[in-house]
């Protein structure tokens, strides 16, 4: 097995709601190895987005991340994001009660700063809101290019940005380069966002429901784009979706989440072929997608 890039262990995320404390991620563990595509599958509210935001260090306060460990491997060196987290969590009895959000954020941001972009970056759902509305798309791609390749001259940076926009299959890259987010369609915004993320040349790309809110045909195009970009350079990716077809199409390995827990972990090949015992929830997802279900029951 190749070197690990990310290892999440026993992650716990909680939120305070009017109905009291709710555990949205309940002891989740998963990992991504170099060159691997891990798919996380789950319905909305299953905790899949929260887990990935936690990996990025972007879960805002209101308790938020309450326990577990997130290791990111930077050239084989493990970096533990949540080390010392216990210090900012106040306990009542032996239960974690509140945490000091500001101190927590400062701690995590400081650790994430050298990792963001270089080791991993993300493409979010809702592409329209992922781009700075006041900057041209080109300027935002250029910002990534400059961070990834600081040695380039200004002209080279511009050319590289147009190149990236062409690589995400924009029909008119030089026009898009000078456009603003509000002038583009949702699908084009997501392509632009993918260009911004990839131009940064991350080791691990995290795609958090990148097709949500897009039209069916556009979704297919974006998924195809991901597939092509993956084939292009053997990139590692964490792909989160509620669509089993997308996940099976892109991922090497799949975990299925429900109610904040992992209910299933299997290779995409096994799932597609219907090999092995399936959790009932996974089985229902497979059945709904008219795929072979295989055996049911606890694996």
């Amino acid at each position, binding site marked *: 097995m190749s070197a690990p890039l990310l290892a999440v262990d026993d992650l716990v995320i909680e939120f305070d709601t009017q109905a009291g404390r709710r555990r949205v991620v309940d002891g989740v563990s998963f990992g991504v190895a170099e060159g691997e595509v891990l798919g996380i599958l789950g319905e909305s509210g299953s905790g899949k987005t929260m887990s990935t935001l936690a990996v990025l260090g972007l879960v805002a306060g209101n308790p938020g991340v309450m326990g577990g460990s997130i290791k990111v491997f930077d050239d084989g060196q493990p970096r533990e994001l949540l080390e010392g987290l216990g210090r900012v969590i106040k306990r009542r009895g032996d239960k974690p009660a509140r945490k000091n959000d500001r101190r927590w954020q400062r701690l995590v941001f400081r650790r994430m700063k050298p990792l963001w972009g270089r080791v991993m970056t993300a493409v*979010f759902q809702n592409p329209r809101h992922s781009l700075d509305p006041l900057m041209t798309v080109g300027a935002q791609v250029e910002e990534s290019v400059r961070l990834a390749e600081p040695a380039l001259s200004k002209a080279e940076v511009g050319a590289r940005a147009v190149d990236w926009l062409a690589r995400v299959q924009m029909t008119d890259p030089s026009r898009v380069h000078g456009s603003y987010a509000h002038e583009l369609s949702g699908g084009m915004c997501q392509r632009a966002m993918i260009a911004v993320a990839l131009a940064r040349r991350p080791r691990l790309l995290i795609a958090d429901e990148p097709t949500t809110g897009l039209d069916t045909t556009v979704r297919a195009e974006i998924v195809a784009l991901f597939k092509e970009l993956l084939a292009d350079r053997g990139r590692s990716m964490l792909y989160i979706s509620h669509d089993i077809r997308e996940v099976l199409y892109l991922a090497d390995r799949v975990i299925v989440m429900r109610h904040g827990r992992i209910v299933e972990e299997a290779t995409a090949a096994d799932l597609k072929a219907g090999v092995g015992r399936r959790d009932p929830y996974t089985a229902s997802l497979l059945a709904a997608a008219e795929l072979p279900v295989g055996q049911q029951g606890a694996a």
Partner: protein
Amino acid sequence: MTRASLLLIAALRRTAGGLLLLVGASFVIYITIRSAPGDAIDAISPMGTPPEVKAKLMAEFGLDRDPLTGYVAWLSRSAVGDFGESLVFAPGATVMDVGLPAFERTLALAGLALAACLVLALLGALLLGRPHPRQQLVTGPLYFVTAAPSFVVAVLFAQGMNWFVHTYVEQGGYETPPWYPIPIYSESWMPYLFAGIVLVAGDGLFTDFLNAVRAELQGLRNAQFIAAVRAKGARTVSHIARNMVVPLVSGYAARLPIVLGGVVIVEYIFTLDGAGYLLLEAARERDFPIVVGLSVLFTATIIVVNLLADIVRALVDPREVARGG
């Protein structure tokens, strides 16, 4: 069309809209004059005005004609800055001669005070950071204190000053310290500084601005594109700063009318020789041309500043131009 030409068209359109507003607002002011009970000329002239002055006033304000043609006559004179002559305050001098220098001082005071308020609100918002429940224990009372009307703040301020002066004199100082702002009229900039402080602190201006900036900053920090910028490892400062320009400029323009009201009160209390003080003195002595002239100047200022804010918005935010407003 290129973005620049679209921008130019938007700017021209907004300027035209601003002019239209100015005409409309001046019409409201004119109609207010015409709505005086009884004979309008008696309502607007001071006691014992000689008949020939009355006749001149009648002609100036078009009171001898029907409201519409009267308005057109008055407007065509006002449009070139001819608001007639002062009656009581500075007889013989034109309104512009008396009013404009005073108005410039007022505008400087109000504009700078509001700018200071903006800077302080921004600093405060950055310093306080994300809203935290416990901060309400601080901001609650702060809100209470600064919701105090400016004249209350001013008197408290003056009392504090008096107390200071007493101790100063008791300690063997000269009668009043050189920086004492109240109530001596002086050419020094000190009274303006104190007036500015009261202006910033009074009428809830600062807290209101602070809350607005904090909410804006908080919304921006939670915005998805900022998370995306963070995730790619770029600095968020420039993105946040750029996106704060529009709300700050809008906030400035939106609060100007409040400050221009506050400046009237503050100038009166600190006896500053500005347009607000002039307006009140002229109103007291029924020097009507000055009152009307200054009202138009105040209104025009608000329109012009809003227009400038619109143009800045259009320059910074490409969506504004796209909306074609």
